[in-house]
């Protein structure tokens, strides 16, 4: 490696073999300092990548909040045997995983910023998560979680939105649950004609329904009906309870408690009615004889039996 010939700004007595070698190499290879914009771009890129991770983390968190706020656990016995199995079905696992991945990415990006090394791992990890959580809460206040979840549900057939999850739980005639709207009243048969989520027509018997339930059923709003399918082919359904279908906003804890109270009252009323009719049956009729009433079927609901034991 040859030395450079002239070094105008250096003192010859200060020169060292190494400085000559270095300057020679700089001259020989025509080296120049890397442009400042490259370093700036790298720095900006890391911060932008961090911001993107935090934004997606916030989006994941806001959908999680929306689901948590809307999970109708007030009626969990109607669809699941235990609260655990209910939550296992409604928990937005995809969004939880997305949130964790985004949190990890945000941490990874932040750890590549210039001054990240000054902070311990837990502070970097927590700060990234906190930004996503705060962002998620803010988005939740503006109802972004609901919009994202429902829009994805509409636009992506494979995406299981919370509304779709809940609808799937309630549109299940084999297990005595229907989701749909009232169509008309069949005066002759004294049944309510009801169209479920699959556009199937049902004749709903309401002998064991209370007046508010009948009013709700005939209101024309989308409702959930709990009961027992008497003849699926012919579309006969015996209703034991009618519940509103609400998916346009969060339910307060107070509202959830009120819903649960009403639900339990209905189920215990069916239980008591069943016990009363059973006693009556023992007194009047021989054992194993079919009951002559339209009532009493609700006492045989799986949910009522679960609650009894």
């Amino acid at each position, binding site marked *: 490696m040859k030395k450079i010939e002239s070094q105008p*700004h250096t003192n010859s007595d*200060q020169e060292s073999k190494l400085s000559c070698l270095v300057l020679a190499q700089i001259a020989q290879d025509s*080296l120049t300092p890397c442009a400042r914009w490259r*370093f700036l771009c790298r720095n900006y890129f890391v911060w932008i990548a961090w911001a993107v991770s935090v934004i997606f983390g916030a989006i994941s968190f806001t959908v999680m909040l929306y689901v948590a706020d809307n999970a109708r656990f007030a009626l969990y016995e109607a669809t699941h045997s235990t609260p655990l199995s209910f939550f296992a079905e409604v928990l937005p696992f995809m969004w939880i995983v997305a949130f964790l991945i985004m949190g990890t990415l945000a941490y990874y990006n932040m750890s590549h910023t210039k001054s990240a090394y000054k902070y311990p791992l837990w502070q970097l990890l927590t700060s990234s998560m906190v930004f996503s959580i705060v962002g998620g809460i803010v988005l939740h206040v503006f109802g972004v979680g609901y919009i994202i979840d429902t829009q994805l549900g509409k636009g992506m057939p494979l995406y299981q939105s919370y509304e779709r999850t809940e609808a799937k739980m309630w549109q299940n005639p084999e297990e005595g649950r229907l989701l749909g709207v009232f169509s008309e009243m069949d005066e002759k048969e004294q049944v309510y004609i009801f169209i479920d989520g699959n556009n199937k027509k049902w004749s709903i018997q309401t002998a064991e329904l209370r007046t508010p339930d009948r009013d709700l059923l005939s209101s024309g709003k989308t409702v959930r009906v709990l009961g027992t399918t008497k003849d699926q082919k012919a579309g006969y359904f015996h209703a034991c309870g009618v519940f509103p279908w609400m998916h346009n906003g969060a339910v307060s804890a107070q509202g959830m408690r009120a819903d649960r109270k009403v639900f339990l009252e209905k189920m215990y009323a069916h239980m008591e009615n069943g016990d009363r009719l059973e006693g009556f049956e023992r007194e009047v009729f021989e054992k194993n004889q079919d009951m002559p009433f339209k009532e009493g079927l609700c006492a045989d609901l799986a949910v009522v039996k679960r609650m009894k034991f």
Partner: protein
Amino acid sequence: MQPDSQHMSDEEIVSMTIRDAAFFSHIVLRYEDKLSRYIMRLGIRNAEDRQDTLQEIFIKIYKNLNGFDTSLSFSSWVYRIAHNEAISAYRKLSVRPEGHLIDEGNERVAREMTMEEGAEKEFDVRVNAQEVYRALEEVEEKYRTVLILRFFEHKEYEEISDILKIPTGSVGTLIHRGKKQLKEKLDTKQLHV
């Protein structure tokens, strides 16, 4: 007119170097000896390898001048580059530290190490410095590096944090553990006090 580099700050020389590469010789002159000693302590003992590594270090410094983080001291930034280059050169050359890690004339430093809090109070100031040198060679790399920066390069915790890119708290922990490990090594050598 030729500027008086003696009274110029590193940062001033850097900005002049960006305009004219010849000014870079001032940087080389200022750091050559310090970095040479530092990378030797890190394990690059062969003079030729050390010269090559130093040349690579200064070329890297030159190429990255525009990336110098002004929130750091220039010295810390230079040491950071030197450290990274020396470690990779050390691994590439598969050089194992031979003989004494610490060069002669550093007995005072070794004594200082033994006089600091905790592990050191048991030691007499007349500790056998040669034993300390040998024990330090056996200390794990992560501890040895901070011990070298602290006691041989006389760097503050903040500077070590900037050079090694670790939190300041970790620097203290590594120094504490390093000294503990050093004491254990000295104990196994049955150092006479």
